[in-house]
């Protein structure tokens, strides 16, 4: 895609390029945003509050949590505390993107952080690591495109209210599939495969121990740090080890193939 744009000059307009890149998330957000708007409406949010929360919090998980906690009459304190644990993992997203966003202005950084979430992070991380021409400005536009789809879907959900029902467990699988795709794209070395399995086991363990999404943060921190320690140990003793060698891929690696999104 980026290659095509490069070869044919201005043939592909910027908005079209960004739309193509963000499309998997945009499309997933339509049914999930609808379901979220419906639930927020059912828990008493009016349309303006639904718009406000979609823009200011912009997180499916967080908005579903708000809706379900309000439905069970939780206190403000409980909702905000749960929110804090749920959103703590965004510190990890920011940290792992920081090398691509260094030296940007304060305003840009503030704006970028405001609309960063799991899904557009997934897209932007992949683009930054496979497409040299992908700029922080492109990444910000990807965020805003996904924000637009999310907010509009929430508005429509809020307006139609409970007149239709959407099976949330089914539509949520769109995001699960997106994350599975991201894992497959990451498994470029044998060691990453080991860390993936380790993270899975740790996630089950810590989610059940903490009884909250804090388990996600702990399992990610622990698994990634173990990965880092193992890689450093291997590099010290056997730099040519097959555990940290790039694996061959039948579909071609993203570096050689810019059309992965099509």
């Amino acid at each position: 895609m980026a290659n095509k744009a490069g070869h044919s000059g201005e043939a592909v307009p910027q908005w079209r390029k960004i739309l193509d890149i963000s499309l998997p998330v945009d499309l997933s957000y339509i049914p999930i945003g609808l379901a979220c708007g419906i639930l927020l409406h059912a828990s008493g949010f009016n349309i303006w509050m639904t718009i406000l929360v979609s823009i200011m919090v912009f997180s499916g998980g967080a908005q579903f949590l708000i809706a379900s906690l309000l439905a069970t009459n939780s206190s403000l304190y409980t909702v905000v505390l749960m929110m804090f644990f749920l959103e703590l993992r965004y510190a990890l997203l920011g940290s792992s993107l920081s090398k691509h966003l260094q030296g940007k202005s304060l305003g840009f950084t503030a704006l970028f952080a405001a609309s960063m979430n799991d899904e557009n992070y997934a897209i932007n991380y992949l683009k930054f690591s496979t497409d040299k021409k992908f700029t922080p400005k492109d990444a910000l536009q990807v965020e805003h495109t996904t924000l637009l789809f999310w907010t509009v879907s929430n508005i429509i959900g809020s307006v139609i209210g409970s007149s239709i029902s959407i099976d949330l467990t089914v539509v949520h699988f769109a995001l699960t599939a997106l994350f599975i795709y991201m894992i497959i794209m990451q498994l470029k070395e044998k060691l990453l495969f080991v860390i993936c399995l380790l993270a899975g086991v740790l996630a089950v363990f810590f989610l059940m121990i903490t009884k909250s999404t804090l388990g996600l943060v702990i399992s990610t921190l622990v698994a990634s740090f173990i990965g880092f320690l193992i890689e450093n140990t291997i590099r010290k003793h056997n730099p040519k080890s097959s555990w940290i060698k790039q694996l061959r891929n039948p579909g071609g690696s993203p570096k050689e193939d810019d059309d992965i999104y099509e």
Partner: protein
Amino acid sequence: MKWNTMQHFWLILACFVVAYLPRILPLLFFRTRKIPVWFNEWMKYVPVSLFTSLVVKDIFISSDYTFMPLTARVPELIAAALVIGVAYWTRSMIISVLVGLGAVFLLSILI
């Protein structure tokens, strides 16, 4: 007790603050500082660990944080296996998402 709109507004504001701080602090911290090599080497393992944790939570963990019996998750397990295959061979994000969504939709009707 039903919340009124003003209470909803304050709730959103409070949620914004706790959601925004973890988003912006690391980016602010590294905006002007040099990122240590070890930190970037560590961060290399963050995406795969985070995405795996999210998938495991979606597929195996119930909303009250217990391990769900696998027999109750047959549609999701089959669909996940399908998505792994499709992602591996096509390298296409959009096809992976659509196949996953279609598979889980059909399987939850059939099973």
